[in-house]
């Protein structure tokens, strides 16, 4: 019984939130890793791309709510998601045409492209704040819970509650669908195969008649889809604020690097590793140990490894450790 209680506490505060957060990071890291794999640079503007797509989703959500369109109990934002994706694809293709294409043609080194993407970050940053403002936006409507903590307690008779939010399950389901579709696309379709070929060996791909501009365009489209979906899921689950999306860049890059840059499977695994470490290193285990240990061994302190303020330090430490000891990541990606 006590072990069960400990497990419920863990599930409520670590496992369920970390799975949702991990899925969001994984989708973000997939976008980053695809750009590294195909376009061969680290895209610092990825957080802003996510924020831009999400912003359009929010604007469309407001429009739909205003005209009374709703898909209760699911959030209206899911209905607006396709429009966000279209808007995000448009902005991403425009930046490619006006910024990255020039450097690609000039065969610039990756670091030049990285700096260019930093510039894109700041411009998109300003654009987003100009359109929707720097403040918090909540756009999650519809039902909030699949099961509430209080209901779980009365239903099962346990002393601890377990809450599962609608947004958390939507995150997981959407992430599974998107990732499955992506892997099917990369492994089974002709275009997907040409993308992988271009990523593996650019010159050989060109010789076998693959159109590089088309590969680049399709990559950007996929990246925009992934970014908008990831951003919308994160915003639904938590809240939308331009600055927090910029901050997401660090855990997402850490996830991509841990998994191995350019390796899609690695990005997903990396996302979950980062999410679980961030949450489990900063969680206070007092309650869990109180249930597991005999009564007189029960801890009086919080049993917390790191204060919650150090959340970002966790992903940064992992990033540094991986770069030091295994620069290619867990799944043999490119070294940075």
């Amino acid at each position: 019984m006590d072990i069960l209680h400990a497990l419920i506490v863990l599930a409520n505060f670590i496992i369920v939130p970390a799975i949702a957060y991990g899925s969001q990071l994984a989708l973000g890291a997939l976008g980053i890793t695809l750009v590294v794999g195909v376009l061969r640079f680290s895209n610092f503007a990825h957080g802003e791309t996510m924020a831009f797509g999400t912003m359009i989703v929010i604007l469309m959500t407001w429009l739909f709510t205003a005209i009374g369109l709703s898909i209760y109990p699911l959030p209206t934002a899911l209905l607006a998601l396709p429009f966000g994706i279209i808007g995000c694809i448009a902005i991403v293709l425009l930046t490619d045409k006006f910024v990255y294409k020039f450097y690609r043609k000039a065969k610039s080194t990756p670091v030049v492209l990285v700096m260019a993407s930093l510039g894109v970050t700041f411009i998109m940053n300003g654009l987003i704040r100009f359109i929707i403002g720097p403040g918090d936006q909540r756009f999650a409507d519809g039902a909030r819970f699949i099961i509430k903590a209080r209901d779980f307690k009365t239903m099962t008779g346990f002393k601890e509650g377990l809450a599962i939010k609608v947004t958390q399950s939507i995150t997981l389901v959407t992430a599974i669908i998107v990732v499955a579709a992506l892997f099917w696309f990369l492994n089974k379709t002709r275009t997907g195969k040409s993308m992988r070929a271009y990523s593996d060996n650019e010159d050989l791909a060109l010789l076998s008649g693959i159109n590089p501009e088309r590969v680049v365009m399709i990559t950007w489209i996929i990246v925009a889809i992934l970014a908008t979906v990831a951003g919308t899921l994160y915003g639904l689950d938590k809240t939308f604020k331009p600055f927090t999306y910029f901050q997401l860049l660090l855990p997402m890059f850490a996830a991509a690097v841990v998994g191995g840059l350019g390796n899609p499977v690695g990005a997903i695994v990396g996302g979950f590793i980062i999410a679980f470490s961030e949450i489990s290193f900063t969680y206070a285990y007092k309650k869990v140990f109180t249930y597991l240990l005999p009564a007189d061994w029960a801890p009086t302190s919080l049993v917390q490894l790191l204060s919650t303020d150090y959340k970002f330090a966790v992903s940064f430490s992992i990033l540094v450790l991986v770069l030091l000891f295994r620069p290619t990541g867990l799944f043999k990606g490119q070294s940075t």
Partner: protein
Amino acid sequence: MKKLLIATTASALIAGAASAEDIKLGIVFGFTGPIESLTQPMAQAAEMAMKEVSDSGALLGGATVEGIRGDSTCIDSAAAVAATERLVTSDKVNGIVGGDCSGVTGAMLQNVARPNGIVMISPSATSPALSTAEDDGLFFRTSPSDARQGQVMTEIIMERGINSVAVTYTNSDYGKGLADAFESAFVAAGGTVTINLAHEDGKADYSAEVGALAAAGGELLVVAGYVDQGGDGIMRASIDTGAFDLYHFPDGMISTNLEDNFGNDINGSQGQHPGTDSPGAASVAAMAEANGFDGSSPFAPESYDAAALIMLAMQAAGSSSSADYAAKVMDVANAPGVQIFPGELAKGLKILADGGEIDYVGGSAVELIGPGESAGAYRQIEIKGGKITTMKYR
């Protein structure tokens, strides 16, 4: 510097002697900045008290009182000090109604009021740190210190039979001061604070903070934050994970947004914010309406009282010089004496002129305690059926 000081002192003396007929008071609030929407009614309430006294002709044998505004900006201490310095040295005010926010008020006190020996009465600075600040007996406030709020909170929570709580506060002067004041009061009363955790405003996700709070445990959670900032995120994460069922809300959390966002999820939770059911607040509101502004706006009655106290103290001392009347502020504010309500300033001035004593009640039930701050009346609320309802005043 020495010359400047001598000049300032000399001019202050001359001003003190010559201004029996025309007294000037500074009104230093943040007319620009984060609380600019509150400061207009505050300043108008202070000016209303000055006009009432001028029209009565009863102060110091018919003196008139004029208010001169200065901008404290609420957050920029340098700007607040410069504005106050100008009022003191070039406008030669005999007292200051202000400042508004705790940080700038402390700076004005140390850099202008004390060096120049000018009385300052703040209607809205609530930081406990100001209770212990060196003030040479010049600083008063008609608002209660958050140390007092900590005690009221302790009483309310203890009366519910709860003696183990978790506390989270917004990482600012306000939040930290309030949380520390509450913790010491609560522990002194025999309660246990399982954790006293800061949270940063403006984050997307507070589940980690709530995880730590839940692990520490406690029968309820005290959220000393802002309802439009991190306090909202903490509440949301806590309700989502079912970490706490009961909450306690200090003044920064109580607003209609609390009802709108959480409603029935927080039924049974309680809180408190400065407020009074004394008839004074209603009469300030009525007088304000006649003058075309909103007198029920937060801290407007306190501002009226701050200005009124300065003028009544001048009458009691028979002098408009800060050095003379500073010691009289506590006398006119507290019993014994005839109770004086808003709109009765002329009556109070007359009693003082005849050598009688008054107990100024004013718009906020003024009762100055300790180092010259309001004892503080609080409105205790409970969330019932998703609505904020008044339980009682204490």
